[in-house]
């Protein structure tokens, strides 16, 4: 999921940074437009910590293994805070554990952050359709947000990797292993959907004002 240094051509890395700058600017503008922009920072900081740790939790799915991403969950719970939160989480993963990389930080942030915003918009349908009191609809939109957030990220990752295979390696083999890795994420997509759904229903019961 995290693309490391030295995999992508420089043009893709630059495009990733450009996209990430734009999305960060847009998110910060939206955050600043809120009544009290600092109000959600504690929530965002704690979820950044969760995002940071999530990549250590490996789930074996033969023949490979995947790790939790939680970008959908962050999108659903944080709204526009999700993009900067993911960017910061990825930065620390890259500098501390070489999980991802600094040249690919822009690409990774766009790949996981933009779907997080998408997940937020999905979950916002709950408010727009006036379904905030229903546990069933909260769970459903939570599942959709979590699953689509990760699903879109996996799709983007697949597209980026498949279209940038360098000519010096065996293209067919690499394409097969990328496809296998992508397929292995399908159970994770469902799992993160359920996880997001559990978290939002729990918050709705105990502290509904934490939901956006």
């Amino acid at each position, binding site marked *: 999921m995290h*693309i*490391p240094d*030295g*995999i992508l051509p420089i043009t893709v890395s630059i495009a990733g940074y450009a996209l990430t700058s734009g999305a960060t600017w847009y998110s910060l503008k939206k955050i600043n437009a809120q009544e009290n922009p*600092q109000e959600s*920072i*504690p*929530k965002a*900081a*704690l979820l*950044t*910590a969760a995002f*940071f*740790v999530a990549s*250590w939790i*490996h789930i074996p799915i033969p023949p*490979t*293994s995947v*790790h939790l991403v939680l970008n959908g969950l962050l999108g659903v719970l944080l709204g526009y805070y999700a993009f900067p939160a993911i960017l910061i989480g990825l930065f*620390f993963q890259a500098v*501390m*554990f*070489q*999980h991802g990389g600094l040249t690919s930080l822009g690409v990774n942030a766009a790949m996981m952050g933009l779907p997080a915003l998408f997940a937020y918009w999905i979950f916002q349908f709950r408010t727009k359709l006036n379904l905030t009191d229903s546990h069933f609809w909260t769970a459903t939109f939570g599942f959709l947000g979590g699953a689509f957030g990760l699903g879109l990220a996996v799709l983007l*990752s697949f597209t*980026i*990797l498949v279209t940038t295979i360098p000519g*010096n*390696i*065996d293209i067919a*083999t*690499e394409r097969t*292993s*990328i496809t*296998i*890795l992508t397929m292995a994420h399908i159970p994770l997509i469902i799992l993160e959907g359920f996880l997001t759904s559990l978290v939002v229903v729990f918050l709705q019961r105990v502290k509904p004002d934490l939901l956006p």
Partner: protein
Amino acid sequence: MNKWKLIFILGFMTALISITPAFAHGAKIEYRINMSIEITASYDSGEPMAEAQVIIYAPNDLSNPWKTGTTDSEGRYSFIPDPLIPGTWDIQVRQAGHGDIIHIPVGEAINTSQSAGFSPFQTILMGVCVIWGFIGTALFFSRRKS
């Protein structure tokens, strides 16, 4: 004439005898150090990178692969670098968009082994520090307004 012939033959025989022991008892050992480099590639989960593609670049040509190969099921791959090309050999391992590149100096100063990464204790300590940073941020912004 016969005398000269005899001397010639005797001289030749003497020469032959003096040489023969060298052929009969001399031992010769030639040596050449074929330093082979073995790499082991694994994911940070500890799982080996099995059947991953290996691309080796010699120090004198960094744009064209010197050799390519595939790791075994344990993520291992070994090769013998050309000793006539000293310098830093770059070995890239790649699978499904994941991978790394390692730089191995071959020549005068040789590191017999090298691994990138931290010990589990260091990793956990660093992780805890970062997490504490996030929690601290959360506590700072949720402090009671005075």
